[in-house]
């Protein structure tokens, strides 16, 4: 992390040079128009000062001029808009093969959970040259994940997963800031992102203390909370609750007559507030687990549900 004086942030992601290109273009536009306007007003103020001997032939209006300064800015902003949009489209689409890291934010720390279960606080290790997808949730207020060197920022909300991605290019250490004001120690909710070559990252991932892998931890939770009592053990058709095998990203018909894709947000909501979007054909009998699961445990539980695979649903399994 270079802590010397600088007027431009480091470029350490695939997005950074693209963002900077538009930034410099806009800087050019801004300098051009500021100098033009400032130059003109100073020039007019001097040339037409009261004491000056000059011809004063004021104009009261001129349609050609008005149209010019409507059309020229319109062309420029349209250009900026389309340039920005083509980039924004790429920035919004998370690559399919991205490495997924779970982020839990709370006043005032960042918790990270890597694929094989390695966890860390306020420091995030990532491989260079590979897209990294962050699935983030806050345990309290709104935070915002911001790495200036990557030109990436995404608010982290309570009660809802938000996602972003980046591909780091340069190994090194970079600032991680919370960018959304979150209370007393907001400015101390900082950390660092350590970008490592891929092989080194793999070694790092395998090292350290060995907590359970997320889905193993999730399976233990599943047992402890006795989810299987109603949902079965995931292999045979359950008695009272919907079958969970292959539930992730399945289209689920709801009591209300609509359908929903069972993504992470839906699964999370169905655990915390089961009656909010009840599966068609089931009684609202599941208790709420609100307050019994931290966000990290929730991540484990969902990881377990995902691991139940996309097994073929036995015919009629979803019917009571």
């Amino acid at each position, binding site marked *: 992390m270079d802590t010397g004086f600088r007027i431009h942030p480091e470029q350490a992601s695939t997005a950074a040079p693209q963002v900077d290109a538009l930034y410099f273009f806009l800087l050019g536009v801004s300098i051009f128009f500021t100098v033009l306007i400032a130059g*003109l007003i100073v020039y007019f103020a001097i040339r037409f000062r009261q004491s000056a001997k000059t011809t004063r032939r004021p104009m009261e209006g001129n349609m050609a001029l008005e149209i010019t300064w409507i059309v020229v800015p319109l062309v420029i*902003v349209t250009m900026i808009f389309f340039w*920005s949009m083509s980039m*924004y489209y790429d920035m919004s689409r998370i690559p399919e093969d991205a490495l997924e890291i779970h982020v839990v934010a709370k006043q005032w720390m960042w918790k990270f959970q890597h694929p094989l279960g390695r966890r860390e606080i306020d420091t995030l290790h990532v491989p260079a040259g590979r897209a990294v997808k962050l699935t983030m949730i806050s345990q309290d207020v709104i935070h915002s994940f911001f790495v200036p060197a990557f030109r990436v920022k995404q608010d982290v909300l309570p009660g*809802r997963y938000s996602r972003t991605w980046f591909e780091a290019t340069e190994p090194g250490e970079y600032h991680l800031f919370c*960018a959304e004001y979150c209370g007393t120690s907001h400015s*101390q909710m900082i950390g660092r992102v350590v970008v490592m070559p891929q092989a080194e990252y793999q070694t790092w991932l395998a090292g350290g203390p060995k907590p359970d892998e997320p889905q193993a931890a999730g399976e233990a939770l599943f047992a402890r909370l006795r989810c299987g009592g109603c949902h079965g053990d995931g292999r045979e058709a359950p008695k009272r609750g919907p079958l969970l095998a292959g539930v992730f990203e399945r289209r689920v018909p709801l009591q209300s007559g609509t359908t929903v894709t069972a993504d992470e947000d839906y699964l999370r909501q169905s655990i915390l507030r089961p009656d909010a979007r009840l599966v068609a054909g089931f009684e609202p009998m599941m208790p709420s687990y609100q307050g019994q699961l931290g966000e990290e445990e929730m991540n484990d539980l969902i990881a377990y549900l995902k691991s139940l695979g996309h097994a073929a649903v036995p015919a009629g399994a979803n019917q009571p």
Partner: protein
Amino acid sequence: MSIVEELPAVPSPAPVEVPEPNYLNAGYTLRSWLLTTDHKRIGILYLISITFFFFVGGAAATLFRLELMTPGADLVESETYNKLFTMHGVLMIFFFLIPSIPAVLGNFLIPMMIGARDLAFPKLNLISWYLLVIGGLFTTWVMLVGGVDTGWTFYTPYSSTYSNTYVMVTAIGIFITGFSSILTGLNFIVTIHTMRAPGMTWFRLPLFVWSSYATSLINVLGTPVLAAALLLIALERGLGIGIFDPALGGDPILFQHLFWFYSHPAVYIMVLPAMGVESELVAHFTRNRVFGYKFVAMASLAIALLGFLVWGHHMFVSGQSYFAGVVFSALSYMIAIPSAIKVFNWTTTMYGGTIRWDTPLLYAMGFIGLFTLGGLTGLFLAAPSLDIHMHDTYFVVAHFHYIMVGGTVMAYLGGIHFWWPKMFGRMYPESWARFSAILIFVGFNLTFFPQFILGYTGMPRRYHIYAEEFQVLNVMSSAGASILGVGYLFPMCYLFWSLKYGKPAGPNPWNATGLEWQTPSPPPTENFPITPIVDEAPYAYHHKELTH
């Protein structure tokens, strides 16, 4: 011995001047001020109140700029720091900028500019002032004694559930003050519609009246939404009704939608009146008709309308959909067009004029430059792909200070200097005034320009403790703030001084057109002895020069 005894030299009594009756000498008691329904007196009451709020808000800024001289925490603790920037934002926005030009200059000038004796509802006008003062003093007291640390944006669920500071009472203060904006807006709209003098057609209205009209529309339509949002926070905080906190089944983003639905148009509540003042200053000090009058007038209405459709550009990284990002970005770029129209028209107005380098012109020129830069940096933030990086950094802080301080405060001060002789019948010392205008311009740029760079290099806003590499630019900014602070103190002093010692101004010291200059200074209570009849467009300088 002479017959005629020499009389002792008695100084002959000075001829007793019977001053013309005017709104200032109509009564000297406190009661005559506190129960007045004269729009001019109410304007002066606003002037005094918002100046108070400005200096309290400024003092908070002075403290945190001092703190930011070093990366660590040395002057205050984080809790205090957070309360300071909240106090600065809340006081400056709700109690200074929003009422500044509309309530002071608008109150004083709109009836005179349209040839009316007062506003349509004089008592309502007095109530509006009381609402601002009650809300403002209450909020100031709460923030000085207890403090609130949510930032002026009150984002949920921090404000509704987690903050341990005085959020409810602050919200009540702002809630009360909101009604001041709504009622003033209503008053202006009705006045402009119904009380124009004979011959004062819509396109003969001075541009200040047009932009006040546009502002009033936003005040009436937008402020209730803010009031509703604050009320909902109070409901959640006080009664635990789940609206914004997901733990209670609410949605925190809903608050941001409600908040910005008001607070983005609020930016135009702050800057549209400044644009109106700017049009007046440019016209009067270049002795030219405003170039493209109808375009400038219609641009105000376009800004007021479009201003309601761009709030989503505050939420590009909050989790709104990609599609919403595209739409809000496009609409935000649209609003650049009417702003550009205005800047180009003001610039061209100067062409071929007879330009007097008086203090108001210096402020007017400063306004054009700073507003242009403020507007252009908005183009960066309207692009989601750039805003992802720049959102919630110092770049945003610099951008909106260029608009609100570089724009609105410059125009406000320019307007105060232009109409001061009308308000009080006295001139201020011109060289002090010019010096202060330049000092403010320099101090402003030194304070806020480094913050653009600071933001792009990645310093988040609302950071009490920051990374070392940001220090140089922060020191520059703090140095600028000290110059700016001194710059603001000067006008306070010499304007106050001029009340007693200033040269009498006479009815029209600038030899300006406009109905407000066709009546004595200070004006009589009824503004015009006989109702004026208007038979020409505003800024008719060429006509005037010909006849003289």
